[in-house]
């Protein structure tokens, strides 16, 4: 379906208020704080994420402050920002784990709900399988609830990574549990992958293995939103970058636009985040 302005958002919405008053616009960001790309050139379903005036506070702590952005579909998106900037909160909202927010959020053109969740594979930064589960129970669980789950792929992953099918989750190391979670998530043929710090707490040797699993196994044309602190390890993988700081969108642009500056993503990250580190 072609993009129809009347179905989307108002002109005011498309002003992308990605900057809060205390964070000045950055030269690498598009005018008005939005993406570098023109919204109109995409058909409606080519947006993986459409977010308008999203705000989320924990008590008095405003984590996301009226942010708006669009992310085109089929890209590997780096979600970058300092601790406490709202990366995990944003991912949890997109995954449907946080429902108490204001604003409009659409994933793959759908409001957060059953339809969006059935096409979204979410990997949290925590271990989520029950202790009583054996590894094969984890596979069965995913097969029960996700129609896009590829059981053979998951079992193949487990064999490749030496994960015993009868081993209980509570007898596995944290690293192995994280690997098991990643395998089950990546065995889904989802349209959207939300990966929250998949490399967090993983030793450098395992990072390349995990990165390899992610980059070689997501469904073609799917969108991968990946939050990380390890900009250096991942910057060559990103097609698109979304930087958050002080509850606002600081940068939302394709990687090619950033590369035109002649700087690495990490350099730009440090430059852009700047004062936003104060959030820590």
């Amino acid at each position, binding site marked *: 379906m072609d993009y129809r302005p009347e179905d989307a958002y108002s002109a005011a919405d498309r002003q992308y208020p990605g900057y809060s008053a205390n964070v000045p616009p950055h030269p690498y960001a598009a005018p008005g704080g939005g993406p570098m790309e023109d919204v109109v050139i995409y058909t409606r379903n080519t947006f993986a994420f459409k977010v308008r005036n999203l705000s989320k506070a924990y*008590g008095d702590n405003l984590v996301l402050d009226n942010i708006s952005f669009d992310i085109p579909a089929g890209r590997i998106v780096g979600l970058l920002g300092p601790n406490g900037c709202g990366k995990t909160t944003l991912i949890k909202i997109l995954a*449907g784990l946080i429902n*108490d927010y204001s604003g409009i959020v659409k994933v793959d053109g759908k409001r957060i709900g059953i339809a969006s969740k059935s096409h*979204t594979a*979410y990997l949290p930064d925590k271990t*989520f399988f029950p202790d*009583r589960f054996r590894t094969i129970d984890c596979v069965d669980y995913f097969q029960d*609830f*996700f129609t896009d789950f590829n059981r053979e792929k998951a079992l193949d992953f487990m064999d490749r990574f030496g994960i015993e099918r009868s081993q209980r989750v509570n007898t596995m190391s944290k690293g192995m549990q994280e690997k098991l979670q990643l395998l089950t998530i990546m065995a889904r043929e989802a349209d959207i992958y939300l990966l929250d710090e998949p490399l967090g707490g993983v030793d450098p040797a395992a990072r390349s293995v995990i990165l390899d699993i992610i980059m070689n196994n997501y469904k073609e044309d799917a969108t991968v939103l990946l939050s990380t602190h390890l900009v250096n390890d991942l910057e060559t993988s990103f097609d698109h970058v979304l930087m958050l700081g002080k509850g606002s969108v600081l940068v939302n642009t394709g990687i090619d636009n950033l590369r035109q500056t002649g700087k690495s993503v990490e350099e730009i990250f440090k430059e852009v985040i700047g004062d936003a580190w104060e959030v820590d």
Partner: protein
Amino acid sequence: MLGKLIKNGFKSNLSATYTIYITMLVLSVVLGALIMFDFTSVGTNGAVAALVSKLVVSVALCITAIISVILTLVAVFGDFARSMYGQQGHLTMALPVRGSALLLAKWLSGAVCVIISYLVFYLSLVFCSFSVLTDLSGYINAGDAASYNVYAIAWQFITYAIQASGKIIPDESIIFTVVNLYAFEGGVRVCIFVLLVFFAVTLAHVYPFDKLKKLGPIVYFFGSFAIVEGFSRLMSKLINVYLLIDTRYAFTFTIYESEANLAWSKGLGAFPITTIYCTVIMSIAVFLVTALLIDRKVNVD
């Protein structure tokens, strides 16, 4: 999808409690063997050994039965909190299902497990009391068919006591029906109890009710329990509905207490159903509110 959720609900509840039920089964078998075994054939010492053994196993079975109820409650409520709003919530809440389906599955599996634990508890008490009564009634050789008459003797005492107070003992079928209705009411009460705990835990994960931290679920449970009980009592005072039961199983309703009392004095049965329908109404309301909170307001830690 609901069936799969219920299956997983049962699996997680039973995985935490099955060992205690196996223990109870073993103790029951041992107690059964002790009751059936003819210890008189091994002399006086054998009879004393039988009494002591039966007492020890009976006490152990009773204690295990109490533990099983507590353990089941802890397992059901702990599993709900963990799997919905704890770390496992990152898996559960990302499933492509409605909050109402998640809640219904947890509620059904949880309530059934708690009801089963209560039933097992009462059965254990009956079994233990049978063991003790056979001893008290002097039937050391409990394999003797006469020893099974102890309950009949006990029932005779009760009927004499009732008749002595000038009342008529209703027909057995009426007593059976009324007992079943009370059991049903007990089941309904267990269901609302489980649901209220789920509601309280859910509310404790909604801003600004999350400010009470770990105290939240306790405060919200007692608060909502007081509201549900208050509603039931108020309705009972305003309009108390009785179900009248006669020997032909013809059920009629009345709102007059005098008619209910008259039924009992005539040897018929009467059962107040206000509590049941009030509890059902409140259950529906609490369920809808909780499902709405899960879909719209809850934050997973």
